[in-house]
């Protein structure tokens, strides 16, 4: 299927090292992009086998954030190389049991609906918040608690849809079950900006988690189902989860068909559609906010200024620069579950950066469920009062305050 030619431009200069969150955490070149490229090359040549425990340890420890790509002067396609390495490892020795189990859940809608439904129930009873804290299990409860809406939702209605472009909302799995309030905010804010949002039944998980783990088969199966469900009727397909959006935009590569390439060409992050229309200004929201860029938005999708344009449409909002906001938070799909120690080291750097901000922000805005949960849990574990919110939630509150809703 694939090969490692995307790694050919690497001249071993090492400029990628300090762009890598795991290298910064350990300062060990085996945990650096350059070191991992050496491992991938050894795998390609057959010098190291796919079941070599050290090779697996250091390739598994890669977040897949692709923070190294923009630091690379010669344009090495690190992400493509990693994808191929993980595919070969999964094909020859299989996934690790915990990863296999987790991906099995995401692969069946009955399974994830049941699991996340139970999670939502625990969250809504207030148990998650009560049990949130440090330590592996309590961090997990923190993640669940962090999925709660940042504000109690007002019963509002979007304006009547106009004659603007039609948009199919990609619902996903985690977003659909735990972040329904972000979907509501997406629908309302898009409507204010003139888009006609259309609900499409029969979608499932995007397959990104499978794809990152090397299970391209599983990802392709889910991709084909989404392609069939969403079809070609709308102008755009809107996604409010950076990780899902990155894979949906890559369906052409994953599925290799003309229909998939056309589909991928219609996919937009919600902030792209909003920024195209301004977006429309809302009412005053006097809050301190810092933006943290999801890796799969800034690197994989190259969507960088649009989320800031969304925050810029909110009068009264004070947007602060978070040092290292372009660096991964350690969530990275199922990474926080299967690589808890490294994930925690990377998260600690992020929380430390937030702790040292003055004034301390009320919200960290970020457009990906994994980042929202990871950073939210980290903040609770650190005892900080800062909370997390999706940029469109903030815009939604601003529209509510500005009387944009009926």
């Amino acid at each position, binding site marked *: 299927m694939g090969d490692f030619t995307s790694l050919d431009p690497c001249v*071993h200069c090492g400029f990628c*090292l300090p762009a890598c969150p795991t290298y910064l955490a350990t300062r060990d070149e085996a945990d650096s992009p350059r070191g991992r490229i050496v491992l991938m090359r050894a795998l390609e040549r057959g010098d190291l086998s796919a079941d070599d425990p050290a090779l697996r340890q250091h390739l598994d420890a890669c977040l897949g954030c692709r923070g190294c790509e923009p630091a690379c002067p010669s344009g090495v396609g690190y992400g493509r190389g990693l994808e191929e390495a993980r595919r070969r490892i999964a094909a020859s020795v299989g996934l690790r049991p915990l990863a296999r189990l987790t991906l099995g859940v995401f692969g069946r809608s009955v399974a994830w609906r049941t699991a996340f439904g139970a999670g939502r129930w625990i969250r809504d009873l207030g148990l998650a918040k009560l049990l949130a804290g440090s330590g592996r299990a309590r961090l997990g409860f923190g993640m669940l608690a962090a999925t709660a809406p940042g504000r109690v939702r007002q019963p509002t209605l979007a304006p009547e849809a106009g004659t603007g472009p039609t948009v199919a909302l990609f619902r996903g799995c985690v977003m659909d079950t735990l972040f329904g309030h972000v979907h509501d905010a997406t629908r309302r804010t898009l409507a204010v900006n003139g888009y006609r949002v259309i609900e499409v039944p029969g979608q499932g998980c995007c397959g990104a988690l499978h794809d990152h783990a090397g299970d391209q088969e599983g990802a392709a199966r889910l991709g084909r189902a989404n392609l069939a469900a969403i079809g070609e009727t709308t102008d755009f397909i809107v996604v409010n989860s950076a990780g899902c959006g990155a894979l949906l935009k890559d369906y052409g590569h994953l599925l290799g068909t003309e229909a998939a390439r056309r589909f991928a060409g219609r996919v937009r992050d919600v902030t792209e559609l909003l920024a195209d229309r301004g977006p429309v200004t809302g009412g005053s929201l006097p809050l301190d906010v810092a933006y943290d860029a999801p890796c799969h938005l800034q690197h994989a999708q190259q969507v960088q200024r649009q989320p800031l344009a969304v925050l810029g449409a909110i009068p009264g909002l004070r947007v602060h620069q978070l040092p290292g906001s372009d660096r991964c938070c350690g969530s990275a799909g199922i990474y926080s579950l299967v690589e808890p120690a490294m994930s925690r080291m990377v998260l600690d750097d992020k929380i430390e950066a937030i702790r040292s901000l003055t004034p301390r922000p009320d919200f960290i805005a970020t457009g990906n469920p994994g980042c929202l949960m990871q950073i939210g849990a980290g903040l609770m574990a650190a005892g900080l009062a800062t909370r997390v919110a999706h940029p469109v939630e903030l815009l939604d509150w601003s529209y509510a305050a500005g009387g944009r809703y009926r």
Partner: protein
Amino acid sequence: MTTSPTPALTADLLGALSRLVGSRWVRHRPAELATYAADGLPTHESRPGLVVLPGSRSEVAAVLSLLAERHVPFVPRGAGTGLSGGALAGGDAVLLTLTRLNRILRIDPASRRAVVEPGVINAHLSQAVARFGLQYVPDPSSQTACTIGGNVAENAGGPHCLKYGVTTNHITALEVILPDGSTATLGSPQGEPWGPDLVGLFLGSEGMFGVAVEITVRLEPTPRDIRTLFAEFTQLRAASSAVSAIIASGIVPAALEMMDQSCLEAVEASIYATGARTDAAAVLLVELDGAPEAVAAEAAVVEPLLRANGARSVTVATSEPDRARLWLGRKKAFGALGRLAPDLAVQDAVVPRSALPDLLDQIAAVRDRLGIRISNVFHAGDGNLHPCISFDRRDPRQAAAVVTANREIMEACLAAGGSITGEHGVGSDKREYMPRAFQPAALDLMCEVRRVFDPDGRANPGKVFPANVCREWRRGDRQ
């Protein structure tokens, strides 16, 4: 040149080192060792016997004592961005990686000093002192990744060393752990020059004298005004004569850099594009800094000089983003050259500035005769050349041509009265040229100095001096 791990390093040593630094900080599996087999110069490879990553200076001292007790050779390493194959260890040696010692210990804005551990990244130091209106001047192109400890070992340079001097001019004191595990303080924080200049001796010793664990650096005020001129030339010789004309005018620019067409093509194709037209034969980057009036007066001299010597266009950047864009293009050039071929051999040599135009012609002749691509990106102001050879090591013909080209370029530089390295060090790569650059008596003296610090010859063995040069090696005491 790959060496495989030898049984010289026993499981017993692995256990002893693990007890000193913790088992997760001793790397011993083949896959992990492979990630440390090269630095920034891909023409040399050598797998270390073990990799140790100590977390504190006391751990460094303990590790070195243990290695001394057991007569095990070691090689210090920073971020592995060096370009001379200097931070490579053989299978019988321990690679001592110092990147975890990455704290800035003190910043003293009043006396313009900072004390740092060796693993601090060069650019991070300047970022940390910027709020005091200060900077750490030596700025090798790898500054976003390389460490201050590595800069000390190689006596690193950088574009701004034309006016401000290389690393040795910016270090006032060192705490070093000697190869036997003992500690010594060299120099004094304020840098008063009394006694033998041991700091000067240690700077550029390429890991053969021990490990600097605390480095006191001189900080300089950020210039009040900076202006960067970017000139495009249609003739390479014209660019060289412009360089000579600027220096002859008595002005010392903060930096005076040249990129030739081949290099420019790679840079302009990268995300660090400067916006130059790639049909230019060469571009010059001239930076002027200082008081605003002085910068304006110098610019009024330099710009006409550039045009009089044939510049077809001169752009002047004064804003920080514009300057940053021009400099990124220059500083990321080595990496950008990765676009041309899978492998890149970056060379380093110095010639008298007056010899630059002829040398560039000779390099072009080597290129044409061997049929390989050579790009030039270098510090023109001080005659420090960096011919970069693009090749594919999987093709034996190309790999052989690289060896020939390197040798011919080095010989041309020496014949022109130059030296074999300006700032990258000798390492593994330039050892064989040492006897051509120095008399036997001078080489013997260097070996003697080395023995003062490292009587057993265990610190970075096999580097800098060719086999058979140092007396103890001639006697066959080791190797």
